[in-house]
């Protein structure tokens, strides 16, 4: 059974003045059990809509979304129990402490404080987060620390499917490395399947078993990084992932993002 299977998913949004934006256009993706699949794409390519559709926050216009064989549109509660998400914004109650936010997040998944506290201690130790800072309001923590707490919040509910939507965007290099190292640890220590959306080529290549390229709501390719690069080889030279992205889309990630803005 696949951890995640999307077949022919379409999603359009109506903007003001009647303009229609096609955010997802016939998207089909599979994530195997224990697999890490990366989706590379510029801003506005549809990555976040894809994550929102899987996490039951946006209803697709067409197509099917299954998480471990369960239809996410018809049975959202069943699906929500087995997955969690980390997005580019850390999204916490800013006045509450990390501990208070984590305890609250755990309870929404039926995990009591008594069950959550030792687990929070373990996770915070694992990510090198000083226990004493866990009682400080979130607004006093750096972006990198907030993002680590966001990962801890997701992990606390033991998801079998994790959706990581640009978890390292906007972080300083040190925090970025820490968060990436933590994702690697999660992968090793848990049998979670991960869908990682990013526009960081190095991150995708380093963390993912397979990488897809997304542009204008379409998945243009989805293969192992080496195979993907070989597909765009010219004159026997295997390009970098960045060059592969440019060959597939006609743009660099920066150019494509600027095009959307």
């Amino acid at each position, binding site marked *: 059974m696949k951890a995640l299977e999307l077949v022919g998913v379409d999603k359009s949004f109506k903007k003001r003045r009647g303009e229609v934006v096609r955010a997802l256009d016939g998207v089909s993706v599979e994530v195997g059990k224990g697999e890490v699949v990366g989706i590379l794409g510029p801003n506005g390519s549809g990555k976040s809509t894809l994550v929102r559709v899987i996490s039951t*926050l946006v*209803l697709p216009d067409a197509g099917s979304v299954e998480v471990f064989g369960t239809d996410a549109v018809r049975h959202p509660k069943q699906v929500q129990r087995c997955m969690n998400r980390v997005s580019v*914004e850390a999204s916490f109650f800013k006045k509450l402490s990390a501990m208070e936010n984590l305890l609250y997040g755990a*309870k929404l998944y039926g*995990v009591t404080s008594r069950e959550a506290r030792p687990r929070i201690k373990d996770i915070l130790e694992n990510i090198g987060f000083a226990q004493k800072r866990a009682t400080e309001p979130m607004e006093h923590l750096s972006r990198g620390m907030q993002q680590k707490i966001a990962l801890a919040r997701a992990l606390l509910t033991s998801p079998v499917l994790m959706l990581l939507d640009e978890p390292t965007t906007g972080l300083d290099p040190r925090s970025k490395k820490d968060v990436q190292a933590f994702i690697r640890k999660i992968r090793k220590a848990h049998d979670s399947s991960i869908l990682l959306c990013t526009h960081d080529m190095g991150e995708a290549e380093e963390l993912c078993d397979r990488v897809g390229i997304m542009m204008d709501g379409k998945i243009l390719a989805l293969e192992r990084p080496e195979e993907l690069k070989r597909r765009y080889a010219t004159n026997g030279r295997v390009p970098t992932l960045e060059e592969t992205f440019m060959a597939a889309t006609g743009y660099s990630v920066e150019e494509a993002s600027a095009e959307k803005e």
Partner: protein
Amino acid sequence: MRGTVKPLWLTEMVAVWGYVQRNYFLTKRYFMWEVVWLVYVTINAMAITFIGAGVEASGGTVDTQFFMTYLLVGALLWNYLSMLFDVLSETVSWERWEGTIEYTFMSPSSRITHLLGMGFYAVVYGILQTVLTLGVCMAFFDLDLSNANYWGALLVLAVASISLVGFGVVAAVLPLLSPEKGQQVSYIVSSVLLLVSGVYYEVEVLPGWMQAIATVSPVTYALQGARAALQEGAGIAELWESIRVLLVMGVVFVPLGLFVFHLGERYAKKTGKLKRSG
């Protein structure tokens, strides 16, 4: 956690407690703001109560003690009921402002659990605030509460809270439909309730069409019942008419509120309006 399977009712109860505890944590963090609000509410209730004394000073012929008690009961009840309504109706806009709405809506706890947790905390917090304000006002004014049936008034308040929760849930859907203007519309609903429900005057003084609106406002019956209990010492038998109407309203408004909210949530998920930026 993986491996420990709890029955569904237990996970939902844990989630209810999660919402209650979160609101308690937030009250603690905003403690000074809460104190300022309590002082404002108390002074506001006192100012309204003084209108009763002002009528006599202006040459009016009223039973001043009775009228001051009448106004104070209106002020206190309106403070409690409007707070309950506001907490429920701000459920969506508040989480959207904090940026946590998507995490709440993608969690497996049901919407009933979510709104129940919000409502439960608002009821407990509102009753504590009302009791404190009443205590201060009782020490300050010579009120006529010698025959008061406090338990009867509490019963009316409890039953009214249920229907107000349903009303608030209907209003909570507005920010889902329009992230920019929805919350403002819910303030209009709240102000209409204040105008037509007889908070500071009898409903009978209103024009006929306003009296018609008053018949569907739970605040009208809550005030009638609470005033009868506190000012006339009415027993359960005399309060039954108000309680009966409030119960019927609760039975109608709570499921209606949840149904409307479900439709609003579905609309927001179809149009992508759930996310913070709208």
